[in-house]
């Protein structure tokens, strides 16, 4: 868009730099927004007064351009929104998403995460693309859908049954609301007092971003730092509940001895402080919470397709490892596949279509989402882990739900054009009700 202005105005022949010219070419109605990032940048510059102590190496000296981007976010920072595309929003007052409000009467209403749940959700990041929406309109809120109400009823039924009987995978087209539904389930279970283990990005476990060590005399590998991080997250999310449960026998975790009757929060503390004991801590912890019947457990895994395809880690022979060769992933796979079970609880997972490279054909075939030729060879090492999973399809918005979301966006004032019924129809029809496309249509005007 900027180039049309550059070609047609005498700005082309000025001595201004390209970024300055682009800034000057922005239409007047967009030019005067004081954006959140501008305020943040002004604050950040004040902190830059302290000089760098570490000597800089020659090979990575960063070139600093004189007319650097000051108010423009550009491509740097995934969480900073580009002000040229998004209109800054007004915070909207929303009711809380509680077990009492997640009912048929509230379908179409946008409810925010309760204040008790938000600190727990802040322990782990939100799913990447959902985070974009939460960054734009604060506080983080999701619409109550028909599928939400029916799914939460199903999860509540699972409260008194073993987790091996309730292993559910949310499927659906890209952007249809799988991660959002999973988040709502997590919020619901946290409000209801379950123990919740939420993994928002299972891909980060498998994409060779954490250190791994071989366990002697086995084909398994341990990821100490990852295990330690996970233990810390679980402890912070479920602190008050875990103080009520104690270990049923003495256990050896790494170099430490944990006695019978220790609180589970103290057990997890051992794993946080010593990353090399964290894997053992996780195993003991999962066994203990599975053995007790008072408090149900929810294991919520997003991007679960990465559990059912080869990882990017390499064995010592140079071959790609399967998730079952990584001890932490195998622990979770046992629960997902039903080999291990919690006495009371449920396993809920969501697939992710974000990256084509992460898709798992084996999982899609096992869930019945995709059909392949019977001659196609599917991985025989991964296929057995997919037995017994039930698939729940997440549909696109119904008209009522989309209207509720549209009204919410209207209150948040993110539309460049005037919000009206024809505009709603336009956005709803062009996006076919797909939640992600509906959001980009409303927020970016495309």
């Amino acid at each position, binding site marked *: 868009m900027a180039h049309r202005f550059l070609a047609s105005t005498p700005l082309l022949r000025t001595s201004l730099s390209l970024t300055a010219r682009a800034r000057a070419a922005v239409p007047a109605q967009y030019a005067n927004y004081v954006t959140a990032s501008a305020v943040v940048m002004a604050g950040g510059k004040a902190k830059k007064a302290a000089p760098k102590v570490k000597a800089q*190496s020659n090979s*990575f000296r960063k070139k600093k351009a004189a007319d650097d981007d000051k108010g423009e976010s550009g491509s740097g920072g995934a969480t900073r929104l580009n002000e040229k595309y998004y209109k800054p929003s007004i915070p909207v007052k929303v009711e809380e998403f509680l077990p009492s409000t997640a009912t048929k009467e509230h379908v179409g209403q946008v409810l925010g995460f309760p204040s008790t749940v938000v600190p727990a959700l802040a322990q782990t990041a939100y799913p990447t693309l959902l985070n974009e929406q939460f960054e734009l309109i604060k506080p983080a809120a999701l619409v109550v859908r028909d599928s939400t109400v029916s799914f939460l009823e199903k999860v509540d039924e699972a409260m008194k049954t073993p987790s091996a009987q309730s292993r559910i995978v949310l499927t659906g087209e890209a952007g249809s609301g799988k991660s959002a539904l999973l988040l709502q389930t997590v919020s619901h279970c946290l409000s209801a007092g379950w123990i919740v283990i939420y993994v928002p990005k299972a891909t980060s476990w498998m994409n060779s971003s954490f*250190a791994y*060590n071989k366990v002697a005399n086995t084909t398994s*590998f341990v990821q100490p730092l990852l295990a330690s991080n996970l233990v810390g997250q679980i402890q912070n999310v479920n602190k008050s509940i875990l103080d009520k449960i104690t270990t049923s026998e003495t256990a050896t975790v790494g170099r430490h001895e944990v006695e019978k009757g220790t609180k589970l929060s103290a057990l997890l503390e051992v794993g946080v402080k010593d990353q090399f004991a964290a894997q053992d801590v996780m195993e003991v912890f999962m066994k203990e919470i599975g053995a007790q019947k008072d408090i149900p457990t929810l294991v919520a895994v997003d991007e679960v397709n990465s559990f059912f395809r080869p990882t990017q*880690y*390499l*064995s*010592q022979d*140079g071959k790609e490892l399967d998730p079952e060769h990584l001890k932490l992933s195998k622990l979770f796979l046992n629960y997902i596949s039903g080999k291990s079970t919690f006495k009371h609880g449920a396993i809920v997972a969501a697939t992710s279509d974000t990256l084509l490279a992460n898709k798992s054909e084996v999982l899609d075939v096992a869930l019945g989402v995709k059909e392949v030729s019977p001659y196609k060879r599917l991985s025989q090492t991964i296929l057995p882990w997919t037995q017994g999973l039930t698939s729940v399809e997440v549909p696109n918005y119904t008209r009522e739900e989309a209207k509720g979301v549209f009204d919410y966006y209207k209150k948040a004032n993110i539309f460049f054009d005037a919000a009206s019924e024809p505009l709603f129809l336009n956005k709803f029809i062009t996006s076919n009700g797909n939640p992600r496309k509906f959001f980009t249509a409303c927020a970016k005007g495309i």
Partner: protein
Amino acid sequence: MLHLLGVNLPDQKLVQYALPLFYGIGQKTALKVLATLSIHKTCKIADLSEPQVNQLSTLLSDMKIESDLRKQIRANIMHHRSIGSYVGRRHAMGLPVRGQNTRNNAKTARRLNGRWLKAEKREYSSSTRSIIPSTDSPFESFFNRKWF
């Protein structure tokens, strides 16, 4: 900056892309080294622990890299030269060795092919006792040879 076997490895570089800085290690060998030592692909040089650096050093010193490899290559080409083979003569003249056309397009060969022998010549010219007879130019040695 990690100094390993004569090569400086910058701290902020991924190990996967720092290992090819060694002469004789390319992309594939680098991945094999990572796999053998169980180093994850996003590990930077600065993230390597002391025992890992020692293991890496041991593994690399067992491989033929850097000066050992250069010596081997030079020796192979010198062997061709000393037995008077066609391959040796082409290296000496700085022309394509493997039967390529020279009517047009021999630019890379003309630029690169003589360098191992020039290095050899430089080495030997600095030593006091020179066993191999010195030749002024490859062409002269070609024309001055007794062919019959």
